[in-house]
């Protein structure tokens, strides 16, 4: 017992560094020779460390309690407790977010202001540009008139072609305004080669849209249209296709929407990376689900595989300005197309009966 107490106090002094160097040496000798002593040293060290930590935290807690008593907790909690008003609560919770949003708004306003200030000048330059364009165009027109005059002298009947598609089952056909502009007479021809006489019913030169009405007793009702017109905008990269009559037979063109704006940022049109030729004008642009997303109306002259299409929204605007009782089984808008889920070739087979060649004399 005596020895045990002595050993314990030596271990404690050893761990606390209170032994003289000689005692220390002797004790370490003893420790390395006696595993039981060594174990006691280790255990006591763990215990002392825990005790020290306990003492420290206890002291810290006492100090913190003292500090806590100095604080007027009730007054602070009155200030920071959840406010009965939701608005104040949201303001408090999101103070920094609101600050960020506000500074962003201010920044945006300043940027916009300075942008408009700069733009005024650029706008002037653009106007000048456009004037030059117009000169170019009028020159181009003159040349064309001359050539067509030359053709007229040859007495070969001037014949223009384009594409159109049915927007109702009773013979309303939608195409581009520029296809039928200045036409004397208009015929539509289906994929079996049968022609029907048609007349202009509605034109919208700004959006380059025209609606024709088939005026022929031999025309049969088309039945319910397989496609529908897409209500929402189309995303860049969306795969699209068009079918049309760049030649006497129907031709499929494949591509994707490459920009949400047309030529020179024209917001009425999409830019489509698709191969089209003269004659494709007025053809429907369909997505993979069989929705019409636009009408092909032109192509970039200098670049291959860049075409433009009037957005589907303007098709609907055109259709809505036609007396509704004259359209029977009109094309569905924003509904699920019956083509959805079909393979591309099956879709084309179904759609081609509703796509017509427009012949203008």
């Amino acid at each position, binding site marked *: 017992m005596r020895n045990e107490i002595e050993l314990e106090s030596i271990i404690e002094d050893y761990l606390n560094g209170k032994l003289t160097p000689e005692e220390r040496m002797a004790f370490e000798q003893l420790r390395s020779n006696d595993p039981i002593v060594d174990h006691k040293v280790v255990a006591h060290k763990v215990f002392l460390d825990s005790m020290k930590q306990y003492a420290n935290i206890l002291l810290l807690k006492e100090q*913190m309690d003292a*500090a806590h008593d100095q604080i007027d907790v009730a007054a602070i*909690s009155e200030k920071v407790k959840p406010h009965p008003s939701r608005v104040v609560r949201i303001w408090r919770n999101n103070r920094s977010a609101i600050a960020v949003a506000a500074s962003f708004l201010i920044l945006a306003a300043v940027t916009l202001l300075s942008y408009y200030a700069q733009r005024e000048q650029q706008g002037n330059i653009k106007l000048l540009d456009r004037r030059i364009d117009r000169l170019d165009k009028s020159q181009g027109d003159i040349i064309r008139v001359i050539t067509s005059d030359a053709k007229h002298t040859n007495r070969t009947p001037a014949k223009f072609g384009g594409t159109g598609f049915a927007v109702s089952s009773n013979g309303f056909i939608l195409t581009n305004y520029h296809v039928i502009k200045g036409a004397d007479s208009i015929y539509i021809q289906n994929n079996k080669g049968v022609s029907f006489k048609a007349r202009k019913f509605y034109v919208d030169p700004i959006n380059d849209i025209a609606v024709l009405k088939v005026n022929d007793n031999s025309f049969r009702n088309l039945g319910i249209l397989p496609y529908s017109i897409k209500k929402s905008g189309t995303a860049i990269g969306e795969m699209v296709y068009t079918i049309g009559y760049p030649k006497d037979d129907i031709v499929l063109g494949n591509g994707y929407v490459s920009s949400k704006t047309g030529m020179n940022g024209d917001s009425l049109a999409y830019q489509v990376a698709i191969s089209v030729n003269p004659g494709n004008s007025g053809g429907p642009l369909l997505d993979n689900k069989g929705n019409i997303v636009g009408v092909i109306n032109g192509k970039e002259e200098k670049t291959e595989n860049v075409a433009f299409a009037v957005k589907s929204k303007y098709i609907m605007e055109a259709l809505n300005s036609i007396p509704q009782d004259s359209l029977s089984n009109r094309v569905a808008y924003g509904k699920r197309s019956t083509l959805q889920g079909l393979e591309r070739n099956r879709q084309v087979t179904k759609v081609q009966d509703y796509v017509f060649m427009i012949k203008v004399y």
Partner: protein
Amino acid sequence: MSIKLSSSVPTDREVVLGILNNSEEALNKLYAGYFPMVLQFILNNNGDEDDAKDVYQEAIIVLYNKIKNGNFELSSKLKTYLYSVSRRIWLKKLTQQRKKTNNIADFEDVLAIDEDVEQHEQKDMQFDKMKVALESLGEPCKTIIQDFYIHNLSMQDICEKFGYTNTDNAKTQKYKCLQRLKKLFFQP
């Protein structure tokens, strides 16, 4: 080493130096400086003033241990650190109490401090174990041990305080108490 603190919220450097030098003044300033922040968080997330006190003190212990162990780097603001630790501790308590924890109302940025909080939980368990062991020791053992190990009294002082006839008797008593305490503390 006493630094005169002018503002109510001490700078982070002052706090770290103060804790390293056991300055009670620095601790008081730290405590008063960030308590409102934690109180606001707890009150807005299903807690009351007492919860705030407990959570805040635990968070300060985490910070204190981290600084004392020398592995506290001033990479973040003390304020953000204390807020994040308090937040973590309170959310754990809420889950334990099965109170709902969705829609946490936050007032500050939050750091990832999971490791620190887990380490703290280990230490906290040790603290509780020691506390329980001391409580179950009974008198006079509890006071002798506390006087010797916590209040740093010498065996001579203890001998006089408890009226032992000589220090050897006191030493024997302390030895017996210590053996019992160790047994209690080390038992699984």
